[in-house]
């Protein structure tokens, strides 16, 4: 009887220590969240004090509450209202996501071809590097000339900016495939295509997701830049409109909307990555 009781208490101890560890982790998470919120409030307070103490004019730097009012006035309307954020955000997002999809697919394709075929690498690499070192937003005027002021130039800019991180990352990721795994496929007489999609592509997945993460933010950037150069709708238009009437609070509010969108897109990519590449960094034997 004593044995059984002591056995039970050992299990109880293990369970209790696991529960304690979980509580500790939760407490740390709550504390981190608290620190984040506190830091944000301090920042707002400093901003407000700065504006008050130095009598900064609202057309230079609006007070935080003015930005909030501008932000809210765009949120608290019907989604179909031309005054809301919804229509311009939808326009920007749809163009950015379409461009992102095109750029990502092309980037993966080119990166894969370069990694798989040396001649392609030799032929394409110099241009890739030249284009990569070029500030790509400087190409935007050309893109507008070629694709017009409509959605085409926005999609094209988004695709162009999303293309490079995807190409470079998928190239690097495929080249980083482990030799032992490639030898396994060789010992199994696997075809090149089989080796590519069963070993190289999954090996490159962590790199590819890093490329997607960068690419989606760049695609948003590309769309906004193209919108600055001329567009009928979109967040870039909302910003230039507000700027034209020195509605600086409106500009700030638009930036907040764009920033939040960027963070959301990043989180979505990370979430997809975690569910697909769940095996990465775990149990490499």
């Amino acid at each position, binding site marked *: 009887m004593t044995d059984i009781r002591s056995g039970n208490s050992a299990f109880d101890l293990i369970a209790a220590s696991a529960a304690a560890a979980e509580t500790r982790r939760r407490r740390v998470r709550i504390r981190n969240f608290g620190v984040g919120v506190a830091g944000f409030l301090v920042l707002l307070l400093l901003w407000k004090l700065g504006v008050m103490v130095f009598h900064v004019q609202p057309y230079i730097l609006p007070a935080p509450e003015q930005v909030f009012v501008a932000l809210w006035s765009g949120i608290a309307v019907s989604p179909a209202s031309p005054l809301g954020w919804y229509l311009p955000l939808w326009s920007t997002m749809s163009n950015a996501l379409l461009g992102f999809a095109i750029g990502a697919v092309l980037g993966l394709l080119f990166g894969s071809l370069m990694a798989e075929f040396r001649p392609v690498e030799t032929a394409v690499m110099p241009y890739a590097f030249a284009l990569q070192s070029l500030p790509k937003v400087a190409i935007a005027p050309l893109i507008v000339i070629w694709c017009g002021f409509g959605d085409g130039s926005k999609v094209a800019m988004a695709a162009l900016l999303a293309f490079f991180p995807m190409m470079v990352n998928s190239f690097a990721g495929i080249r980083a495939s482990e030799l*032992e*795994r490639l*030898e*396994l*496929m*060789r*010992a*199994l*007489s*696997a*075809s090149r295509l*089989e080796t590519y999609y*069963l*070993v190289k592509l*999954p090996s490159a*997945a962590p790199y590819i997701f890093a490329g997607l993460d960068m690419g989606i933010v760049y695609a948003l950037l590309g769309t906004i830049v193209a919108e600055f150069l001329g567009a009928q709708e979109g967040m870039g238009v909302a910003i230039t409109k507000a700027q034209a009437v020195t509605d600086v609070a409106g500009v700030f509010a638009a930036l907040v909307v764009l920033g939040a969108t960027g963070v959301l897109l990043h989180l979505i990519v990370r979430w997809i990555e975690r569910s697909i*590449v*769940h*095996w*990465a960094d*775990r*149990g*490499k*034997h």
Partner: protein
Amino acid sequence: MAYTSEAAGQLATAVPTASAKAASARSALIAVEGVVKIYSTVAGEPVLALDRVDLNIRDGEFVCLVGPSGCGKTTLMRLLAGLDRADAGTSSLGGKLLDGPSPEVGVVFQQSNLLPWFTVWQNVTLPLHVGGGKGVGEREAALRDLLDIAGLKGFENKYPYELSGGMQQRVAIVRALARDPKLLLMDEPFGALDALTRERMNAELQRIWMASGKTVVLITHSIDEAIFLGDRVVVMSPRPGRIVRDLVVDVRRPRVAAETFGSPAHVALAREIRTLLDG
């Protein structure tokens, strides 16, 4: 060094005579004849990795290759796996020349080398899906049996990172047997495991081997492992890699670690191998 290679040369003459070799070659499943392999170092200097290696292995035999690092045992394994080509000499399996990867040869690598993005089942069936494989088909029952024998029943849908190192290596063994090969090549399969797990894995491997009846070539640098598992222990010398002695382990199966280790036969063999390796 001069002394070592001279000693190795003398020992090499102790290997069976040419006529005896020819006789055994006829009944051999695997025949390695006069194989030479030369590597070039990074500096471009040629290194003789294997020097006229002859080896015959009968169907169903368990042969262990032992030797110090750099004796060319991995080179020999890569040649048999079709991952490298010999510079001279031939190897054949069942009379067919081995000059590239063959479905008749299953390979177990040093680390389990499982694909982490696939489940256990996806990993063990991989060989049936690639290289012109027709899918799992009628191999399914045999594979499920093998998983059962290897103590992996119920783990089919787990990912490799959810398994222990020993279990991962057992998955790798089942994968190597997926195509029902004649020859199973194992390159220090348990080198990464701790001593106790390794001993257990040796017993497991003996069981799997006895159940499957495959011919096995296992490379190891553990003398105990070689004697415990092998019907024969082939001792190799360091550069240039040569076979210096081919020893028969005359201990009945199934062998049990607690009985085999420390038995007079084991101790005598271990002493002989150690002397050869120190030579």
